[in-house]
């Protein structure tokens, strides 16, 4: 098979695995994870084959036409940036699948969970590899939806449901902004693919639509990557089981926004707007995230807020756009995915084995869980930016980027040192506090985690060490191609563990000192931030609730205004509108029919039938009770059917007979069921008004028919059907052949409508008095909540 077909297969494989996951789990239990992890491993190996090619500075694209008429394709773009992401997603994905196997062992819905995780993996992979805008958007929203499913996995709990909905509203709404931005981009440039956009050049930055595109894209990226003030969904998303937090909410999905910014950096970046907006939001997110992390005692929440801070750091670096900043962003992104994924899984292990993840209720676990302790320590060393770990390299590069001596850089450097020092303190609080000190009683008796649980974080932690030790190779294969892709021009990353005295090392030392000071005073710091936050009292999280409440209230108010719930009001509106359309349109366009003439020699039997029809109508109007009126309506219908028959339309007439019969039966049944008063009790003025509307409608339809039949008849279609009905469709009954053959697809749609209407009526009929009351209760409930 050629490489394009294999890549296509790799994009689809996670979804196939998601399909079989529930079945496999039913038969194999938690051991199905070993089998399911083969899918991401295969994908990882597939993308590994691209590494040498990409390292030589090449770009691989491929794909298939999707909607050729709109120039939309299913196509992928593999360069240093997307390849790094693809390797992270499939590599960490394999470990997460294994970890989920151990973490949710014996859970009744483990299969469903694995299925969701694999679906997410496929969506995320599609997102980063997409070349066409539309494909990126589709996968972008798919990650939001799968994230919704995963956060709300434990759907019995109110908090999980709320968090899931919140994440969906924020990230899904951001996705719509992104779609608008991409559409404008498409309109301005006429290009639908990133690979072509990159060669589009500076033209876009001078376009009057530049700012609109930038703001919309930032709206998508900032919501997805939890930038302040859209960050609140991320800590709430910690309601999800820990594998989800490790995978979606630290290593991959939240980086989608950063990915988008990096991808568009060559086209949108470098302008004053870009260099003001991104660093501003980035640094605000960094500092507030790090400060909020200190406030928490829940391991997962601490990690969530530091993730937010790290995302802020990445956005800051992407926004600065200098060569060192880009390289630092590339390095830190990979380093963060490794150490944060590992730390989340460690937090999950502690939670799983002790039954608690509250920092203040844990301690002295080092003897019971030595391996977990080692992993946590290795990950924290990387997160704290200490040699010889990968995090150290990333941090050196960050400070290199910030260490020029203009005022702006110094402010950013100072804030970055503050944020990093806080993250340092949090990292070691997580890696040391639960393990050191005296033993604390935990809800479950602590013991070392099984292999399925420790394998993933161990590999990630080791990777953080080995990449730093073999930095030359790692830079050549991963970091340099990735930086080149972000910058849009060739770059070479050189940083290594060798000591190099300079401002960056000084800043690192300051970070270390401040970090240690923070760590030692963590409790005091926590109390202080708690006081500050209590003083502020309001946060975007509460703002979200207020927003949703306001939306509900608005919807209720509009519904009250538009929907009276009275059938006669609806019918009056509909029929008045019909009458206006039928009468006003021909007058406005001067298309009134000529006065009809009456043929002199109408046969007596036709006159008799018309007389019957008129008599039927009179009977309807004069009937004393409703049932008589309904039956009399049938008289008129039958008379019309006979006229059809006389004029040579047996099929039509046949159908008309049946319809008339059935509508009389059904109407009569409805009448008995509605328990209306048998006779019409409308007041006189109402009757006059209604009859005027009815006459206007009837008169309008009469005009319409006269006008339509007044134009000369075009027999082309009739001739066509008469000619070909027998010869190519093997049927003599032209009407039937048209219905089932020539225009069969129409009929298919129509019978679907018939069935849906039937279902709708059925559910209306089934609404009994009791359930109607329940409906009213629901409405009252909504109003009360609003």
């Amino acid at each position, binding site marked *: 098979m050629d490489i394009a077909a294999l890549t296509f297969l790799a994009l689809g494989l996670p979804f196939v695995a998601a399909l079989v996951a529930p079945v496999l789990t039913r038969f194999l239990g938690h051991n199905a994870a070993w089998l399911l992890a083969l899918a991401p491993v295969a994908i990882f190996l597939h993308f590994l084959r691209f590494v040498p090619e990409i390292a030589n500075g090449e770009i691989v694209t491929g794909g298939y036409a999707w909607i050729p008429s709109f120039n939309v394709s299913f196509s992928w773009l593999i360069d240093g940036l997307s390849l790094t992401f693809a390797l992270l997603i499939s590599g960490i994905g394999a470990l997460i699948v294994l970890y989920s196997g151990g973490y949710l062992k014996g859970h009744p819905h483990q299969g469903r969970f694995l299925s969701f995780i694999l679906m997410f993996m496929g969506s995320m992979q599609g997102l980063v590899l997409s070349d066409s805008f539309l494909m990126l958007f589709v996968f972008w929203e798919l990650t939001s939806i799968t994230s919704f499913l995963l956060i709300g996995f434990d759907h019995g709990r109110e908090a999980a449901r709320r968090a899931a909905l919140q994440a969906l509203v924020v990230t899904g709404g951001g996705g719509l902004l992104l779609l608008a931005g991409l559409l404008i981009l498409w309109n301005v440039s006429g290009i639908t693919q990133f690979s072509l956009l990159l060669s589009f050049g500076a033209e876009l930055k001078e376009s009057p639509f530049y700012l609109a595109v930038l703001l919309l894209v930032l709206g998508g990226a900032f919501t997805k990557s939890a930038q302040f003030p859209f960050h609140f969904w991320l800590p709430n998303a910690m309601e999800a089981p820990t594998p989800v937090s490790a995978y979606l909410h630290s290593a991959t999905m939240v980086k989608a926004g950063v990915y988008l910014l990096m991808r568009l950096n060559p086209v949108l970046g470098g302008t004053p707007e870009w260099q003001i907006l991104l660093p501003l939001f980035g640094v605000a997110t960094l500092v507030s995230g790090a400060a909020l992390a200190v406030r928490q005692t829940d391991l997962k929440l601490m990690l969530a807020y530091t993730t937010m801070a790290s995302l802020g750091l990445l956005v800051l670096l992407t926004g600065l756009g200098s060569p060192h900043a880009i390289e630092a962003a590339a390095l830190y992104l990979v380093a963060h995915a490794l150490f944060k994924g590992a730390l989340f899984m460690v937090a999950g292990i502690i939670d799983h084995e002790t039954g608690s993840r509250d920092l203040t209720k844990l301690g002295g676990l080092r003897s019971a869980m030595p391996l977990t302790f080692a992993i946590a320590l290795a990950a924290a060393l990387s997160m704290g930016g200490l040699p010889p770990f990968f995090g150290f390299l990333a941090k050196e590069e960050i400070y290199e980027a910030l260490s020029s001596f203009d005022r702006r850089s110094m402010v950013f450097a100072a804030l970055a040192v503050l944020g990093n020092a806080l993250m340092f303190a949090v990292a070691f609080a997580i890696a040391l506090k639960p393990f050191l000190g005296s033993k604390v009683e935990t809800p479950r008796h602590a013991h070392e985690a099984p292999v399925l649980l420790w394998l993933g974080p161990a590999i990630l932690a080791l990777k953080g060490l080995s990449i730093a030790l073999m930095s030359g190779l790692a830079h050549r294969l991963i970091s340099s191609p990735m930086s080149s892709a972000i910058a849009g021009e060739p770059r070479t990353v050189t940083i290594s563990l060798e000591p190099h005295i300079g401002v960056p090392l000084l800043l690192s030392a300051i970070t270390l000192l401040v970090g240690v000071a923070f760590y030692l005073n963590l409790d005091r710091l926590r109390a202080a931030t708690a006081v500050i936050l209590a003083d502020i009292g309001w946060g975007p999280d509460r703002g979200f609730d207020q927003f949703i409440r306001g939306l509900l209230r608005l919807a209720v108010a509009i519904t009250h205004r538009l929907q009276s719930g009275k059938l006669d009001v609806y019918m009056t509106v509909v029929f008045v509108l019909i009458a206006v359309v039928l009468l006003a349109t021909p007058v406005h366009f001067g298309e009134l029919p000529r006065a009809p003439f009456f043929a002199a020699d109408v046969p007596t039997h036709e006159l008799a039938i018309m007389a019957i029809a008129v008599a039927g109508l009179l009977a309807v109007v004069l009937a004393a009770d409703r049932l008589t009126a309904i039956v009399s309506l049938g008289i008129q219908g039958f008379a019309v059917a006979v006229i059809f028959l006389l004029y040579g339309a*047996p099929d039509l007439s046949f159908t008309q007979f049946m319809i008339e019969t059935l509508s009389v039966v059904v109407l009569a049944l409805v009448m008995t069921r509605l328990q209306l008063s048998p006779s019409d009790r409308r007041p006189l003025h109402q009757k006059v008004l209604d009859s005027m509307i009815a006459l206007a409608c009837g008169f309008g339809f009469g005009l319409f028919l006269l006008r339509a039949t007044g134009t000369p008849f075009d027999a082309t279609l009739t001739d066509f059907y008469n000619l070909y009905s027998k010869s190519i469709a093997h049927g003599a009954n032209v009407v039937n052949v048209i219905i*089932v053959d020539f225009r069969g697809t129409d*009929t298919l749609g129509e019978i679907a409508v018939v069935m849906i209407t039937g279902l709708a009526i059925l559910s209306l*009929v089934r609404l009994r008095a009791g359930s109607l009351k329940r409906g009213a209760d629901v409405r009252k409930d909504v109003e009360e909540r609003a």
Partner: protein
Amino acid sequence: MKSVIFRTVAPFLTSLMTLFSIFVLLRGHNEPGGGFIGGLIAVSALAIYGIAHGVETVRHAIYFHPMAIAGAGLFAATVAGLISLFAQVPFMTGLWIYPSLFGVEVPLSTVMLFDTGVYLVVVGSISSVALSLEERGGE
């Protein structure tokens, strides 16, 4: 309904009408008729039976839930359209075969299957509405 004559006649009438509806369905391709009209006749037949003997009897007699019948019809119609894809011709192209049964050539076609689908959808949807309206329970 209390009328003895009606109650006695109703089963025969219903059987005859159902038979007639199938006849109308099958001859539809060459003579007036077809799935839609046939379906309407069958619904009238069921309505008559229901009025005479009660909804429960009808539900028992048709065995399947009417909506299931409608669903099967929609499915059959869709399948009839899809079959042509396997013959490498566009969706909904009519395909005909002429097997010989006891020496008589019987023309069969996807179009016929499609029309049967229409028939079932009409029967199922409308009769389910009519039957649920006839039911007086729960009031």
